[in-house]
Protein backbone atom coordinates (compact mmCIF):
# COMPACT_ATOMS: atom_id res chain seq x y z
CA UNK A 1 0.00 0.00 0.00
CA UNK A 2 2.77 2.37 1.02
CA UNK A 3 4.50 1.85 -2.33
CA UNK A 4 1.34 2.85 -4.19
CA UNK A 5 0.93 6.15 -2.36
CA UNK A 6 3.09 8.35 -4.63
CA UNK A 7 1.16 7.35 -7.75
CA UNK A 8 -2.15 7.58 -5.92
CA UNK A 9 -1.17 11.00 -4.65
CA UNK A 10 -0.47 12.14 -8.21
CA UNK A 11 -3.80 10.72 -9.38
CA UNK A 12 -5.73 12.32 -6.52
CA UNK A 13 -4.12 15.67 -7.29
CA UNK A 14 -4.84 15.34 -11.01
CA UNK A 15 -8.55 14.91 -10.28
CA UNK A 16 -8.92 17.73 -7.80
CA UNK A 17 -8.49 21.47 -7.75
CA UNK A 18 -5.89 21.85 -5.03
CA UNK A 19 -3.24 20.02 -3.05
CA UNK A 20 -5.55 20.14 -0.05
CA UNK A 21 -8.41 18.50 -1.90
CA UNK A 22 -5.99 15.99 -3.33
CA UNK A 23 -4.62 15.01 0.08
CA UNK A 24 -8.13 14.67 1.47
CA UNK A 25 -9.09 12.38 -1.38
CA UNK A 26 -5.91 10.36 -0.88
CA UNK A 27 -6.58 10.00 2.82
CA UNK A 28 -10.16 8.89 2.22
CA UNK A 29 -8.94 6.40 -0.36
CA UNK A 30 -6.27 4.86 1.90
CA UNK A 31 -8.87 4.62 4.63
CA UNK A 32 -11.34 2.87 2.36
CA UNK A 33 -8.78 0.52 0.84
CA UNK A 34 -7.54 -0.67 4.21
CA UNK A 35 -10.98 -0.94 5.75
CA UNK A 36 -12.35 -2.82 2.73
CA UNK A 37 -9.21 -4.85 2.14
CA UNK A 38 -11.18 -8.05 2.63
CA UNK A 39 -13.42 -7.16 -0.30
CA UNK A 40 -10.57 -7.21 -2.77
CA UNK A 41 -11.44 -10.02 -5.19
CA UNK A 42 -8.05 -10.68 -6.72
CA UNK A 43 -6.90 -9.02 -9.91
CA UNK A 44 -4.58 -6.05 -9.76
CA UNK A 45 -4.52 -4.52 -6.31
CA UNK A 46 -3.27 -1.29 -7.84
CA UNK A 47 -6.24 -1.09 -10.22
CA UNK A 48 -8.55 -1.77 -7.32
CA UNK A 49 -7.14 1.16 -5.36
CA UNK A 50 -7.52 3.39 -8.44
CA UNK A 51 -11.11 2.29 -8.76
CA UNK A 52 -11.81 3.14 -5.14
CA UNK A 53 -10.27 6.58 -5.52
CA UNK A 54 -12.18 7.23 -8.75
CA UNK A 55 -15.47 6.25 -7.13
CA UNK A 56 -14.81 8.32 -4.04
CA UNK A 57 -14.05 11.31 -6.23
CA UNK A 58 -17.08 10.88 -8.48
CA UNK A 59 -19.34 10.40 -5.45
CA UNK A 60 -18.06 13.52 -3.79
CA UNK A 61 -18.41 15.53 -6.99
CA UNK A 62 -21.98 14.31 -7.29
CA UNK A 63 -22.65 15.35 -3.72
CA UNK A 64 -21.06 18.72 -4.46
CA UNK A 65 -23.31 19.23 -7.43
CA UNK A 66 -26.30 18.72 -5.18
CA UNK A 67 -24.84 20.94 -2.48
CA UNK A 68 -22.44 23.24 -4.26
CA UNK A 69 -19.71 24.68 -2.10
CA UNK A 70 -16.83 26.90 -2.99
CA UNK A 71 -13.68 25.56 -1.43
CA UNK A 72 -11.95 28.14 0.71
CA UNK A 73 -8.62 27.47 -0.86
CA UNK A 74 -9.83 27.91 -4.42
CA UNK A 75 -8.21 31.28 -4.77
CA UNK A 76 -4.76 29.90 -4.08
CA UNK A 77 -5.22 26.81 -6.15
CA UNK A 78 -5.14 28.41 -9.54
CA UNK A 79 -1.65 29.67 -8.90
CA UNK A 80 0.74 26.75 -8.68
CA UNK A 81 3.91 28.06 -10.18
CA UNK A 82 5.98 25.00 -9.35
CA UNK A 83 4.04 22.79 -11.73
CA UNK A 84 5.67 23.67 -15.01
CA UNK A 85 8.31 26.07 -16.08
CA UNK A 86 5.76 28.73 -16.99
CA UNK A 87 3.37 29.56 -14.15
CA UNK A 88 0.91 31.23 -16.50
CA UNK A 89 0.80 28.17 -18.70
CA UNK A 90 0.18 25.82 -15.79
CA UNK A 91 -2.52 28.08 -14.40
CA UNK A 92 -4.21 28.04 -17.78
CA UNK A 93 -3.95 24.27 -17.93
CA UNK A 94 -5.38 23.80 -14.43
CA UNK A 95 -8.23 26.20 -15.14
CA UNK A 96 -9.05 24.37 -18.36
CA UNK A 97 -8.97 21.01 -16.57
CA UNK A 98 -11.42 22.24 -13.97
CA UNK A 99 -14.00 22.80 -16.70
CA UNK A 100 -13.92 19.15 -17.80
CA UNK A 101 -16.64 16.99 -16.27
CA UNK A 102 -15.23 14.53 -13.70
CA UNK A 103 -16.32 11.47 -15.70
CA UNK A 104 -14.15 12.59 -18.61
CA UNK A 105 -11.35 13.92 -16.49
CA UNK A 106 -10.87 10.62 -14.65
CA UNK A 107 -10.48 8.74 -17.96
CA UNK A 108 -8.04 11.32 -19.30
CA UNK A 109 -5.89 11.21 -16.19
CA UNK A 110 -5.95 7.43 -15.85
CA UNK A 111 -4.64 7.10 -19.39
CA UNK A 112 -2.40 10.08 -19.98
CA UNK A 113 -0.92 10.71 -16.53
CA UNK A 114 -1.23 7.31 -14.85
CA UNK A 115 -0.43 5.29 -17.97
CA UNK A 116 -3.25 2.75 -17.82
CA UNK A 117 -4.24 0.95 -21.02
CA UNK A 118 -7.71 1.48 -22.47
CA UNK A 119 -8.68 -2.06 -21.48
CA UNK A 120 -7.46 -1.51 -17.91
CA UNK A 121 -9.52 1.66 -17.62
CA UNK A 122 -12.59 -0.13 -18.97
CA UNK A 123 -12.21 -2.84 -16.31
CA UNK A 124 -11.34 -0.38 -13.60
CA UNK A 125 -14.35 1.84 -14.20
CA UNK A 126 -16.56 -1.08 -15.24
CA UNK A 127 -17.58 0.61 -18.46
CA UNK A 128 -17.38 -0.67 -22.07
CA UNK A 129 -14.17 -0.05 -24.03
CA UNK A 130 -16.14 2.12 -26.48
CA UNK A 131 -17.21 4.38 -23.62
CA UNK A 132 -13.59 4.73 -22.52
CA UNK A 133 -12.66 5.82 -26.04
CA UNK A 134 -15.51 8.30 -26.37
CA UNK A 135 -14.76 9.80 -22.94
CA UNK A 136 -11.08 10.09 -23.80
CA UNK A 137 -12.01 11.80 -27.03
CA UNK A 138 -14.43 14.19 -25.32
CA UNK A 139 -11.85 15.01 -22.67
CA UNK A 140 -9.06 15.67 -25.18
CA UNK A 141 -11.23 17.76 -27.43
CA UNK A 142 -12.75 19.89 -24.68
CA UNK A 143 -9.37 20.45 -23.07
CA UNK A 144 -7.97 21.57 -26.41
CA UNK A 145 -11.01 23.72 -27.10
CA UNK A 146 -10.74 25.37 -23.70
CA UNK A 147 -7.02 26.01 -24.08
CA UNK A 148 -7.53 27.44 -27.53
CA UNK A 149 -10.17 29.85 -26.25
CA UNK A 150 -7.98 30.87 -23.37
CA UNK A 151 -5.20 31.51 -25.78
CA UNK A 152 -7.00 34.40 -27.41
CA UNK A 153 -5.71 37.56 -25.85
CA UNK A 154 -7.71 40.65 -26.65
CA UNK A 155 -5.79 43.87 -26.70
CA UNK A 156 -7.71 47.05 -26.45
CA UNK A 157 -6.47 50.56 -26.90
CA UNK A 158 -8.03 53.26 -24.82
CA UNK A 159 -9.93 55.60 -27.08
Amino acid at each position, binding site marked *: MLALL*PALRRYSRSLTRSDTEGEDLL*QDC*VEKVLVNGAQWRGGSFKSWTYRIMTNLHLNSRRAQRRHPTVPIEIAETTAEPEMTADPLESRRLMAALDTIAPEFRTVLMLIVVEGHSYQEVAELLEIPLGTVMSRLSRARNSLREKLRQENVIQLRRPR
Partner: protein
Amino acid sequence: MSAPKPVTEADLHAYIDGFLDTEETLRIEQFLSENPDFAAMLADWQNDSAALRAAFADKAVSRPEDTSLVARAGKPIPNNRRRLPAIAASILLTFAAGALAGHFGPRLWTAPQIELSYSEILPQESKNAFLVYASEVRHPVEVFAAEETHLATWLGKRLAIDKLTVPDLKSLGFKLVGGRLLPVDGRAGAMFMYEDGTGQRITVLVGRNADNRNTSFRFASADKLETFYWIDNDLGYAVTGEISRDFLRRIAEECYRQFPS
Protein backbone atom coordinates in the same frame (compact mmCIF):
# COMPACT_ATOMS: atom_id res chain seq x y z
CA MET B 1 -1.77 -7.09 -50.25
CA SER B 2 -5.22 -6.23 -48.94
CA ALA B 3 -6.72 -2.73 -48.97
CA PRO B 4 -5.40 -0.50 -46.14
CA LYS B 5 -7.49 -0.57 -42.98
CA PRO B 6 -9.37 2.69 -42.41
CA VAL B 7 -7.90 4.85 -39.66
CA THR B 8 -10.33 5.40 -36.77
CA GLU B 9 -10.22 8.03 -34.07
CA ALA B 10 -9.44 5.28 -31.58
CA ASP B 11 -6.32 4.53 -33.65
CA LEU B 12 -5.25 8.15 -33.36
CA HIS B 13 -5.62 8.12 -29.58
CA ALA B 14 -3.75 4.83 -29.36
CA TYR B 15 -1.00 6.35 -31.48
CA ILE B 16 -0.64 9.32 -29.11
CA ASP B 17 -0.78 7.12 -26.05
CA GLY B 18 1.81 4.72 -27.39
CA PHE B 19 -0.36 1.62 -27.54
CA LEU B 20 0.36 0.73 -31.17
CA ASP B 21 2.92 -1.76 -32.43
CA THR B 22 5.50 -0.75 -35.03
CA GLU B 23 3.40 -1.76 -38.00
CA GLU B 24 0.33 0.14 -36.80
CA THR B 25 2.47 3.15 -35.94
CA LEU B 26 3.83 3.26 -39.47
CA ARG B 27 0.29 3.02 -40.86
CA ILE B 28 -0.82 6.05 -38.80
CA GLU B 29 2.27 8.03 -39.69
CA GLN B 30 1.59 7.36 -43.34
CA PHE B 31 -1.98 8.58 -42.83
CA LEU B 32 -0.83 11.72 -41.00
CA SER B 33 1.64 12.65 -43.72
CA GLU B 34 -1.29 12.67 -46.14
CA ASN B 35 -3.69 14.50 -43.81
CA PRO B 36 -2.06 17.61 -42.40
CA ASP B 37 -5.25 18.66 -40.55
CA PHE B 38 -5.25 15.47 -38.53
CA ALA B 39 -1.51 15.80 -38.05
CA ALA B 40 -2.04 19.25 -36.54
CA MET B 41 -4.80 17.96 -34.27
CA LEU B 42 -2.61 15.13 -33.08
CA ALA B 43 0.28 17.49 -32.46
CA ASP B 44 -2.05 19.51 -30.21
CA TRP B 45 -3.20 16.41 -28.35
CA GLN B 46 0.40 15.35 -27.98
CA ASN B 47 1.40 18.71 -26.54
CA ASP B 48 -1.55 18.70 -24.16
CA SER B 49 -0.71 15.20 -22.97
CA ALA B 50 2.90 16.15 -22.37
CA ALA B 51 1.78 19.27 -20.47
CA LEU B 52 -0.54 17.16 -18.30
CA ARG B 53 2.18 14.67 -17.48
CA ALA B 54 4.58 17.50 -16.68
CA ALA B 55 1.99 19.27 -14.53
CA PHE B 56 1.53 16.30 -12.24
CA ALA B 57 4.94 14.64 -12.49
CA ASP B 58 6.19 16.16 -9.25
CA LYS B 59 3.07 15.09 -7.37
CA ALA B 60 4.03 11.41 -7.32
CA VAL B 61 6.07 11.67 -4.15
CA SER B 62 6.23 9.98 -0.80
CA ARG B 63 5.59 12.13 2.21
CA PRO B 64 6.78 11.68 5.78
CA GLU B 65 3.22 11.20 6.99
CA ASP B 66 2.53 8.32 4.59
CA THR B 67 3.54 5.67 7.11
CA SER B 68 1.15 6.97 9.71
CA LEU B 69 -1.54 7.49 7.07
CA VAL B 70 -1.44 3.79 6.27
CA ALA B 71 -0.85 2.68 9.86
CA ARG B 72 -3.75 4.69 11.18
CA ALA B 73 -6.26 4.00 8.44
CA GLY B 74 -8.95 1.54 9.36
CA LYS B 75 -8.72 2.30 13.04
CA PRO B 76 -11.72 4.03 14.52
CA ILE B 77 -10.05 7.34 15.21
CA PRO B 78 -9.71 8.62 11.63
CA ASN B 79 -13.42 8.01 11.14
CA ASN B 80 -14.01 10.69 13.68
CA ARG B 81 -12.91 13.15 11.05
CA ARG B 82 -16.34 12.74 9.55
CA ARG B 83 -17.92 13.39 12.91
CA LEU B 84 -15.95 16.58 13.32
CA PRO B 85 -18.98 18.86 12.99
CA ALA B 86 -20.74 16.85 15.68
CA ILE B 87 -17.68 16.93 17.91
CA ALA B 88 -17.22 20.64 17.31
CA ALA B 89 -20.86 21.17 18.16
CA SER B 90 -20.53 19.15 21.34
CA ILE B 91 -17.48 21.16 22.35
CA LEU B 92 -19.36 24.36 21.67
CA LEU B 93 -22.26 23.07 23.71
CA THR B 94 -19.93 22.17 26.54
CA PHE B 95 -18.50 25.65 26.49
CA ALA B 96 -21.87 27.28 26.07
CA ALA B 97 -23.24 25.28 28.97
CA GLY B 98 -20.20 26.15 31.03
CA ALA B 99 -20.42 29.82 30.16
CA LEU B 100 -24.13 29.97 30.84
CA ALA B 101 -23.74 28.13 34.10
CA GLY B 102 -20.87 30.39 35.05
CA HIS B 103 -22.76 33.51 34.13
CA PHE B 104 -26.23 32.79 35.39
CA GLY B 105 -25.49 30.04 37.84
CA PRO B 106 -24.57 32.18 40.82
CA ARG B 107 -27.49 34.51 40.24
CA LEU B 108 -30.17 31.93 39.53
CA TRP B 109 -29.18 29.35 42.04
CA THR B 110 -27.51 29.97 45.27
CA ALA B 111 -26.42 26.35 45.37
CA PRO B 112 -23.30 26.29 43.16
CA GLN B 113 -23.20 22.48 42.82
CA ILE B 114 -25.28 22.86 39.66
CA GLU B 115 -22.06 23.73 37.84
CA LEU B 116 -19.91 20.97 36.52
CA SER B 117 -16.86 20.73 38.70
CA TYR B 118 -13.46 21.01 37.13
CA SER B 119 -12.77 17.36 37.74
CA GLU B 120 -15.81 16.54 35.63
CA ILE B 121 -14.97 18.96 32.85
CA LEU B 122 -11.30 18.06 32.59
CA PRO B 123 -11.63 14.47 31.29
CA GLN B 124 -14.39 15.58 28.92
CA GLU B 125 -12.22 18.31 27.45
CA SER B 126 -9.31 15.92 27.16
CA LYS B 127 -11.43 13.37 25.31
CA ASN B 128 -12.76 16.02 22.93
CA ALA B 129 -9.29 17.36 22.21
CA PHE B 130 -8.09 13.86 21.45
CA LEU B 131 -11.03 13.16 19.14
CA VAL B 132 -10.57 16.38 17.23
CA TYR B 133 -6.80 16.60 16.96
CA ALA B 134 -5.39 13.07 17.11
CA SER B 135 -7.09 12.16 13.84
CA GLU B 136 -5.57 15.11 12.03
CA VAL B 137 -2.95 13.73 9.69
CA ARG B 138 -1.30 16.91 8.56
CA HIS B 139 -2.14 19.54 11.17
CA PRO B 140 -2.38 17.71 14.47
CA VAL B 141 -0.46 20.39 16.35
CA GLU B 142 0.38 24.06 16.01
CA VAL B 143 4.00 23.75 17.00
CA PHE B 144 5.88 20.60 16.09
CA ALA B 145 8.42 18.79 18.23
CA ALA B 146 11.28 20.33 16.28
CA GLU B 147 10.60 23.55 18.20
CA GLU B 148 10.13 21.93 21.58
CA THR B 149 11.81 24.71 23.54
CA HIS B 150 9.65 27.35 21.89
CA LEU B 151 6.59 25.18 22.52
CA ALA B 152 7.32 24.97 26.24
CA THR B 153 8.09 28.69 26.61
CA TRP B 154 5.06 29.78 24.60
CA LEU B 155 2.51 27.54 26.31
CA GLY B 156 4.10 28.19 29.70
CA LYS B 157 3.55 31.88 29.13
CA ARG B 158 -0.07 31.44 28.08
CA LEU B 159 -0.86 29.25 31.08
CA ALA B 160 1.23 31.37 33.43
CA ILE B 161 3.37 28.40 34.41
CA ASP B 162 6.91 29.39 35.22
CA LYS B 163 8.70 26.39 33.84
CA LEU B 164 6.32 24.26 31.86
CA THR B 165 7.78 20.84 31.24
CA VAL B 166 6.92 18.94 28.10
CA PRO B 167 6.91 15.36 29.39
CA ASP B 168 9.42 13.02 27.76
CA LEU B 169 7.70 9.69 27.08
CA LYS B 170 10.40 8.09 24.95
CA SER B 171 11.02 5.47 27.60
CA LEU B 172 7.46 4.27 26.97
CA GLY B 173 7.85 4.31 23.21
CA PHE B 174 6.01 7.57 22.56
CA LYS B 175 7.77 10.50 20.96
CA LEU B 176 6.50 14.06 20.96
CA VAL B 177 4.57 15.20 17.86
CA GLY B 178 4.11 18.73 19.18
CA GLY B 179 1.56 20.81 20.97
CA ARG B 180 -1.10 23.44 20.73
CA LEU B 181 -2.93 26.07 22.66
CA LEU B 182 -6.60 25.29 23.24
CA PRO B 183 -9.41 26.24 25.59
CA VAL B 184 -9.85 24.07 28.67
CA ASP B 185 -12.89 24.99 30.70
CA GLY B 186 -12.94 28.35 28.94
CA ARG B 187 -9.35 29.27 29.74
CA ALA B 188 -6.06 28.89 27.94
CA GLY B 189 -4.86 25.32 28.14
CA ALA B 190 -2.13 23.27 26.53
CA MET B 191 -2.21 20.01 24.66
CA PHE B 192 0.79 17.85 23.87
CA MET B 193 0.54 15.03 21.38
CA TYR B 194 2.70 11.91 21.26
CA GLU B 195 2.95 9.11 18.77
CA ASP B 196 4.42 5.62 18.90
CA GLY B 197 6.11 3.74 16.06
CA THR B 198 2.79 2.55 14.63
CA GLY B 199 1.27 6.02 14.50
CA GLN B 200 -0.88 5.40 17.58
CA ARG B 201 -1.36 8.72 19.30
CA ILE B 202 -2.01 9.93 22.82
CA THR B 203 -2.66 13.44 24.09
CA VAL B 204 -1.71 15.17 27.32
CA LEU B 205 -3.85 18.10 28.39
CA VAL B 206 -2.87 20.77 30.92
CA GLY B 207 -5.40 23.30 32.13
CA ARG B 208 -5.76 25.96 34.81
CA ASN B 209 -7.85 24.74 37.69
CA ALA B 210 -10.27 27.07 39.40
CA ASP B 211 -11.45 24.59 42.01
CA ASN B 212 -8.06 24.47 43.63
CA ARG B 213 -8.46 20.97 44.95
CA ASN B 214 -6.09 18.08 44.71
CA THR B 215 -7.33 14.77 43.46
CA SER B 216 -5.77 11.39 43.21
CA PHE B 217 -5.49 9.74 39.81
CA ARG B 218 -8.91 9.30 38.35
CA PHE B 219 -10.01 7.40 35.42
CA ALA B 220 -12.73 7.93 32.80
CA SER B 221 -13.59 5.77 29.86
CA ALA B 222 -15.88 6.48 26.90
CA ASP B 223 -16.28 4.38 23.78
CA LYS B 224 -12.81 2.98 23.31
CA LEU B 225 -11.06 6.00 24.72
CA GLU B 226 -9.39 5.93 28.09
CA THR B 227 -8.55 9.06 30.06
CA PHE B 228 -6.49 9.44 33.21
CA TYR B 229 -6.68 12.75 35.00
CA TRP B 230 -5.61 14.42 38.16
CA ILE B 231 -5.62 17.87 39.69
CA ASP B 232 -2.49 19.15 41.33
CA ASN B 233 -3.06 22.47 43.10
CA ASP B 234 -3.99 25.02 40.47
CA LEU B 235 -3.33 22.83 37.45
CA GLY B 236 -5.36 20.01 35.97
CA TYR B 237 -3.85 17.25 33.86
CA ALA B 238 -5.45 14.63 31.65
CA VAL B 239 -3.97 11.92 29.44
CA THR B 240 -6.17 10.39 26.73
CA GLY B 241 -5.54 7.58 24.29
CA GLU B 242 -7.06 4.62 22.62
CA ILE B 243 -4.76 2.20 24.37
CA SER B 244 -5.05 -0.21 27.28
CA ARG B 245 -5.88 1.27 30.63
CA ASP B 246 -2.78 -0.24 32.20
CA PHE B 247 -0.46 1.30 29.65
CA LEU B 248 -2.18 4.66 29.79
CA ARG B 249 -1.78 4.58 33.55
CA ARG B 250 1.96 4.11 33.16
CA ILE B 251 2.02 7.11 30.82
CA ALA B 252 -0.03 9.18 33.27
CA GLU B 253 2.31 8.27 36.11
CA GLU B 254 5.32 9.17 34.01
CA CYS B 255 3.76 12.57 33.22
CA TYR B 256 2.90 13.11 36.88
CA ARG B 257 6.50 12.37 37.81
CA GLN B 258 7.81 14.89 35.27
CA PHE B 259 5.37 17.76 35.76
CA PRO B 260 6.54 20.07 38.52
CA SER B 261 4.35 19.94 41.59
